[in-house]
């Protein structure tokens, strides 16, 4: 059967790959904006956490005090995140994969069960939905358990796994938007700088993690969203074996003993923000925790805010495995985006939504542009890159420009019936 033999460049599939990573990011941001605009209209809830440990904002402080306080908060938070990331690297180095996986399952369960339950309760109270506690508990239990399975097991339906990852990102992002305003903005900037340092500096924890994972040919133990690989239709392989692109499986033809144990549970293990917190905090139930109003935050790092492009059929693969796979495509890896990126993008857009929808549109466009730039750099440099800095920088810049300059202009134009 004649097939098209024109050589593929990365540009051919680039558009599709971008769309496949932009869609879940956009969905997550949209859902967070929706949640923020529905649920936050009445109360100004503030939550005590590690991110507000140094200073809690009151509206009567001067701007400089607020800024200093926010800076202290963010530095404290980033310090906690750095320590936790180093612990994660250490555990990964010591091959405690099972512990990391269990930890990740536990954190997903807490996020989906408790935070999802809280948000559902907000909805129920807002709209006075007459649901009884039995059905509520059954539905919540189902939702959380299947979510844990989807994140835990590497071979669940792709759509289900991706959906649950987006939901986890959404819940954590919504929770972050409950922080005070100055703290949120300074935290975003500081996290972007931390991401830059952690991934690019040779001593950065995320870079160590990526290098460890690549040298062992394993997956990084973190909550990572992986887009479907783009299939090329012109791979002129004449083999008769059914070719199969294995989803998320390491093609370990060598089959070392460790690889065997890792073969099933490669993906995902680790935590994200609030959950590490729950583990560290006191043993009381979630109810007691809420009543005390104490929610300590944890490590967004473990949702690894980095973006990675795995090349199938490269990186130390033997020719035997290449023949088995029959691919020889080379340029159709799957793009992976850490869940921390989802979370922080959505936090930025959610915070923008708390001001006005104009800032939401501006920030959304800025973030998408930043993500596109990052993806192009990824295709160019072919190594793990931090996904936060460019997008957050553009997003924050656009937010402040829109809020202080554009809004005045647009409002005046509208009032005088000049435009819009």
């Amino acid at each position, binding site marked *: *059967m004649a*097939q098209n033999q024109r050589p593929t460049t990365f540009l051919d599939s680039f558009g599709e790959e971008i769309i496949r990573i932009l869609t879940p990011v956009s969905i997550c941001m949209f859902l967070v904006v929706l949640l923020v605009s529905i649920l936050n209209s009445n*109360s100004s*809830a*503030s*939550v005590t956490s590690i991110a507000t440990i140094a200073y809690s904002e009151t509206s009567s402080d001067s701007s400089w005090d607020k800024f200093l306080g926010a800076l202290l908060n963010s530095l404290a938070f980033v310090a906690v995140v750095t320590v936790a990331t180093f612990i994660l690297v250490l555990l990964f180095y010591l091959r405690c994969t099972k512990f990391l996986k269990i930890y990740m399952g536990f954190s997903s369960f807490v996020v989906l069960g408790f935070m999802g*339950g*809280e948000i559902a*309760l*907000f909805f*129920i*109270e807002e709209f*006075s*939905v*007459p*649901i*009884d*506690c*039995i*059905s*509520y508990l*059954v539905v919540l*239990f*189902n*939702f959380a*358990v*299947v979510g844990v*399975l*989807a994140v835990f097991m590497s*071979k*669940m*339906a*792709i*759509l*289900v796994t991706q959906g649950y990852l987006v939901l986890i990102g959404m819940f954590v992002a919504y929770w972050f938007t*409950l922080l005070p305003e100055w703290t949120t903005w300074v935290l975003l900037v500081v996290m972007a700088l931390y991401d830059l340092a952690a991934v690019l500096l040779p001593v950065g924890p995320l870079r160590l993690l990526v290098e460890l994972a690549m040298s062992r040919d394993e997956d990084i133990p973190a909550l990572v969203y992986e887009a*479907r*690989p783009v*299939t*090329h*239709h012109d*791979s002129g*392989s004449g*083999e*008769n*074996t*059914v*070719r*199969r*692109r*294995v*989803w998320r499986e390491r093609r370990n033809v060598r089959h070392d003993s460790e690889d065997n144990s890792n073969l099933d549970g490669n993906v995902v293990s680790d935590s994200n923000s609030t959950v590490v917190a729950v583990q560290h905090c006191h043993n009381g139930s979630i*109810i007691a925790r*809420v*009543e005390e*109003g104490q*929610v300590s935050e944890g490590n967004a790092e473990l949702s690894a805010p980095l973006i990675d492009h795995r090349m199938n059929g490269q990186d130390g693969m033997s020719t035997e495995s290449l023949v088995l796979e*029959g691919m020889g495509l080379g340029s159709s890896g799957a793009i992976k985006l850490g869940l921390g990126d989802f979370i922080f993008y959505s936090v930025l857009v959610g915070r923008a939504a708390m001001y006005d929808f104009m800032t939401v549109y501006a920030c959304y466009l800025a973030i998408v542009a930043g993500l596109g730039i990052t993806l192009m750099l990824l295709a160019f440099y072919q190594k793990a890159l931090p996904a936060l800095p460019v997008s957050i920088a553009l997003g924050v810049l656009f937010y402040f420009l829109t809020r202080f300059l554009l809004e005045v202009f647009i409002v005046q134009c509208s009032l005088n019936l000049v435009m819009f």
Partner: protein
Amino acid sequence: MEASQALTNPTPNPNPNPNPNPNNNYASNRNSILSSTPVWPTIDGPLGLSEDESLSYARRFYKFGYALLPWLWAVNCFYFWPVLRHSRSFPSLRPYVVGSAVGFTVFSAILCSWALTFAIGGEHLFGSIWDQLVMYNVADRLGLTGWS
């Protein structure tokens, strides 16, 4: 041919042909496009599981669903949708997937009827129990949304 089928055809239904040839041994005839039965039992097609691996998954999902997890049954049916759709394929997987579908329908029927009775019946059907069972009162009593 079959390679392109596996690659370009994300849905597992191959080209329809005039004489459907139910394929009994997939191990040897996996590449035959003369059969109208799909090659991949999962909805992910070539990215998903092969038939041998999926037996243990289908069985495990089915058994775990009995722990009050109808949603797991629904995910099982969704995941192995080709098994449900082509009624003569994958005979080893079929009982579990069909069992999951039946279980999900029955459980959700029961749950929906209970929830609707509760919501529509309201106080004059249940009396004072209604106030004790309804979720927003329970949340208030236990202080579950304490920070709002």
